[in-house]
């Protein structure tokens, strides 16, 4: 079947090679447009002044951080169920990008919180669960880095991923409840009231750029992983000869 055809590393490798430039280019263009909107078209917020412009990276990064984790878990599940090498590779190549976006969400959140709330950090439900998500990413990466044997490390990482993805919603709701049950602090997440259309567009375009970027980066990483693992096969050997 078609799907099986593309799931073979030997076909996937060149295909990914052809797709990467397109995704990279799209990411660059969308970022340029998004930045233009965020700095030159979006009006000043009447409550938060110019500080709110952080939203144009904060929100896309936060979205990506959660989304990538789910996608990773998806590939892990497929890998464990059908033992397809490619899905493990995909899961693995997404992790660093996901961790990076989580970090960016945390960082920009902190840099937003300082002017808006007067504190770099508060133990709000959303913030706390994002922090824990970061720990989960780091955990998966640390585990995979600690195991030399690729097969073992793929499987171990995938198992951890699945356990994590079941837990993330539980963690989120528990944290949320924890916070609201004894809400002692005066600060709470102030939302930009009704976002102007143009701001929404800016955010969406930036989010799309983040998507394209993630896909491109993950594909590049996947390609490196693939040739490393398939080095005994004929197609990699001939590839190594072709490109000096």
């Amino acid at each position, binding site marked *: 079947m078609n799907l099986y055809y593309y799931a073979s590393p030997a076909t996937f490798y060149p295909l990914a090679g052809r797709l990467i430039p397109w995704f990279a280019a799209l990411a660059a263009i969308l970022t340029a447009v998004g930045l233009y909107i965020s700095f030159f078209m979006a009006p000043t917020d009447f409550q938060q002044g110019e500080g709110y412009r952080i939203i144009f990276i904060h929100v896309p990064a936060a979205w990506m951080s959660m989304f990538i984790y789910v996608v990773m878990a998806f590939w892990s599940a497929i890998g464990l169920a059908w033992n397809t090498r490619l899905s493990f590779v995909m899961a693995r190549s997404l992790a660093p990008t996901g961790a990076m976006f989580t970090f960016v969400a945390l960082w920009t959140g902190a840099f937003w919180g300082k002017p808006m709330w007067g504190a770099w950090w508060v133990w709000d439900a959303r913030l706390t669960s994002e922090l824990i998500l970061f720990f989960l990413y780091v955990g998966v990466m640390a585990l995979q880095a600690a195991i*030399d044997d690729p*097969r073992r490390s793929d499987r171990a990482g995938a198992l951890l991923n699945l356990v994590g993805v079941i837990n993330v919603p539980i963690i989120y709701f528990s944290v949320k409840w924890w916070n609201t049950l004894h809400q002692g602090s005066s600060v709470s997440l102030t939302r930009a009231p009704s976002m102007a259309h143009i701001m929404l567009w800016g955010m969406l375009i930036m989010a799309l750029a983040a998507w394209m970027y993630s896909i491109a980066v993950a594909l590049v990483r996947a390609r490196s992983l693939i040739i490393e693992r398939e*080095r*005994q096969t004929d197609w990699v050997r001939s590839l190594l000869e072709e490109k000096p």
Partner: protein
Amino acid sequence: MLSAHDLACERGDRLLFRNLGFELQSGEALMVRGGNGHGKTSLLRILCGLSTPAAGEVRWRNQPIRQAHEQFGREMAYIGHNNGIKDDLTPIENLRLAAALGGRSLDQAQATHALGQVGLARCLDIPARVLSFGQRRRVALAGLMTAGALLWILDEPLTGLDVHGVAMVEQLIRDHVVAGGLAIMTTHQALALDGVTPKTLSVGD
């Protein structure tokens, strides 16, 4: 009964062996030969189902061993470079626990008897931790004797044993095979099983 088809094993950057296959029937022994680092241990671990081969499969009574987990577990016994005994327990407790985990029952007297046979009559109730290198190996061998398994997979059973120990192991394996058992082993020393000629299999370059 045990057959291996087209096995291949990769470790790190190296292909240790490939297209390796054999068949072993009741009453036969197989000696795996090869120098240091040629992949004997790796092969044995594949055969007992602890690691998965890069290609090929192992069958027991014509079923892949992954599927026959329960039956294979009951009929196979493995001794690796590690003895698989708990340092904090005495030899007797070690044997009895191992039996219980394998679903067999072994009473005090039987365990004592087995340990006596491997020459540990004086070390029944000191913790295994203080035993000497060779004595620890002997505890593992006593465990093998009481396991009542049909297939023995032994990775260098002679290491650390003195001359009496070596003679004892030879006798043990011979009796097992003559009684219809299967044995797969590796060793770098001479191993004389009089009356039984093991098949041999060379691993690695």
